């Protein structure tokens, strides 16, 4: 089966700094994949390259069989990629419902002229959109909070609202940037379960970024590890857990060596 998202040799530089270097990744359809790595490894930059916020200097990104790098972000979203942000970026002074309605934007068609005259088509579409927004609100468990301004919602609710907003565009591929950032272990575990449910319910593909290695191990089928912009390892969670380069990246060389010794002695 062909991968739904594939990047080839993606490189992004900022002045002299190479944020992402020759990064290859393949994401299978309907899978949950993860890009992990220490802070500042270039994970979010890579996301920004996929969503068109940055244009990589080199390399190609294929989505559903065609290249998308260089397209503007709105076109990429329209082609079926949606994302959330590490440091939640909701439309703070709009209500929860309005946030989700904005998320539905690429699917709506009514023009501004038809909304001045409130044509029947426009009204039907708006009613459907509102209904769908409410459904999504229920789906992420925020029933009753629809009329709250986004910035008045509690942190956890904001995270879920951001996911609902991303889902509103009915994406094929959902990019989650550190969905458990700022959560305690209990909440993180719940979020992980929720992400898996998402995939199973909607049949979408999920690619997530995580900083914390442990939380992704449970749900990811495929993991790419990034350090200093480069891919240092790739495989299923088992393979990653044992990979000395990954341990080195996370803990430093000395610790990795010690750990390696320990595993070896344990093995013996």
């Amino acid at each position, binding site marked *: 089966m062909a991968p739904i998202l594939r990047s080839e040799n993606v490189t992004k530089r900022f002045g002299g700094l190479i944020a992402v270097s020759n990064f290859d990744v393949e994401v299978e359809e309907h899978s949950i994949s993860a890009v992990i790595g220490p802070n500042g490894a270039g994970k979010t930059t890579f996301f920004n390259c996929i969503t068109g916020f940055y244009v990589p200097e080199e390399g190609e990104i294929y989505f559903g069989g065609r*290249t998308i790098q260089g*397209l*503007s972000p709105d*076109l990429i979203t329209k082609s079926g990629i949606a994302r959330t942000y590490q440091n939640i970026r909701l439309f703070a002074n709009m209500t929860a419902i309005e946030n989700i309605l904005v998320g539905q934007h690429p699917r709506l068609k009514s023009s501004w002229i038809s909304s001045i005259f409130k044509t029947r088509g426009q009204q039907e579409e708006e009613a459907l959109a509102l209904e769908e927004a409410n459904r999504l609100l229920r789906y992420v468990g925020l029933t009753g909070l629809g009329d709250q301004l986004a910035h008045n919602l509690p942190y956890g609710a904001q995270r879920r609202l951001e996911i609902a907003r991303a889902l509103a565009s009915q994406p094929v591929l959902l990019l989650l940037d550190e969905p458990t950032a700022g959560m305690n272990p209990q909440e993180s575990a719940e979020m992980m379960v929720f992400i898996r449910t998402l995939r199973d319910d909607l049949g979408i593909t999920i690619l997530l970024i995580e900083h914390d290695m442990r939380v992704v191990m449970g749900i990811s089928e495929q993991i790419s590890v990034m350090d200093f912009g480069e891919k240092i390892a790739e495989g299923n969670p088992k393979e990653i857990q044992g990979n000395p380069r990954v341990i080195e990246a996370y803990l430093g060389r000395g610790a990795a060596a010690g750990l390696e010794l320990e595993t070896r002695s344990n093995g013996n």
Partner: protein
Amino acid sequence: MLKGFLDRYLERFSWVSFFLRLFQIAAIIIIVVGVYNTLTTAKYTNAQWVTLVFAGLAQGSIYALIALGYTLVYGILLMINFAHGEVYMAGAFTAVFLANYQAESGFLARSPWLAILSWLALAVVVSTVIAILLERIAYRPLRNAPRLVPLITAIGASFVLQYTFRGFYGTVFRSYPTVPALQGTVNVFGAQVPLVQLVVLIAAIILMVILYFFVDRTKRGKAMRSVSEDHDVSRLMGINIDRIIVTTFALGGALAGAAGIFNGLFRPQGVFFFMGFFPGLKAFTAAVLGGIGNVRGAFIGGLLLGVIESLFPNLILEGLGIPAVNQLRDAFGFTMLVLILIFRPQGIFGERLAEKKA
């Protein structure tokens, strides 16, 4: 194969870039044609061009001194101090009374340099105080507000200052007395350049050098640079952020005050409550031209803008057969601003700040 390539290209085609490019080409063609026509008709002599350049440099040094205030504040607070032009006005408008008093009493004729120094002192003090008050009352409470809030406050402050001084000093146009010691011309490259223009230019350069040493060498200056890099880290280093910000406003105010007197020396007329508005805008243009946040850039940007404004209407517009080019001089400055921000928002020396994806 070709079709695929074409599709790919069309998908990435941006009308905005296309039109901006077109606009750029049109601007260049207009400039080239205008310059070519003017130079081939030989309407002005070389000496006349030199005169224009020096007039532009003198005017530009005023812009440069004001621009330094914009750039210093922007460097530290990332805000456009829209009311800075009024800080300039405050000093110039206040000192004009002292100047006229000294002219009447004969003090100016007896010891002109002392007189000018006293005007300078008064204007610098007034402008500095106004700048500090501005920061304290209008901007400090808003330091963490969304970007547009301090800008709107600054617009408000600009009007408050204008109409305050209008209320204080009345609506009459004042003018500085002519300083006999600064009359006369100097021969430069075969052109007669007014002495006062040279004096203003040199004085501005001296101030600039002093500022440069202050920012570069003194402890306070180093603290300023540190704050402009990162507020939080500087605070951790034990730097009093509030004091540095006040220093910045005070420095900008002092330079604007000095600019007000220099302006009065070589263009004595037109001292009134609105006199700061357009120079303020032009100086902002100069700061952007040099790369906002960059001290050296602001100065060079100011001089450059002065020369451009002085030369280009005659050099370009006249070649295009446009009558009464002097009427369009101000429009030229604003057009420059628009063009820079569109095509090179980072200015000559600066970083790319004006675009969102900084």
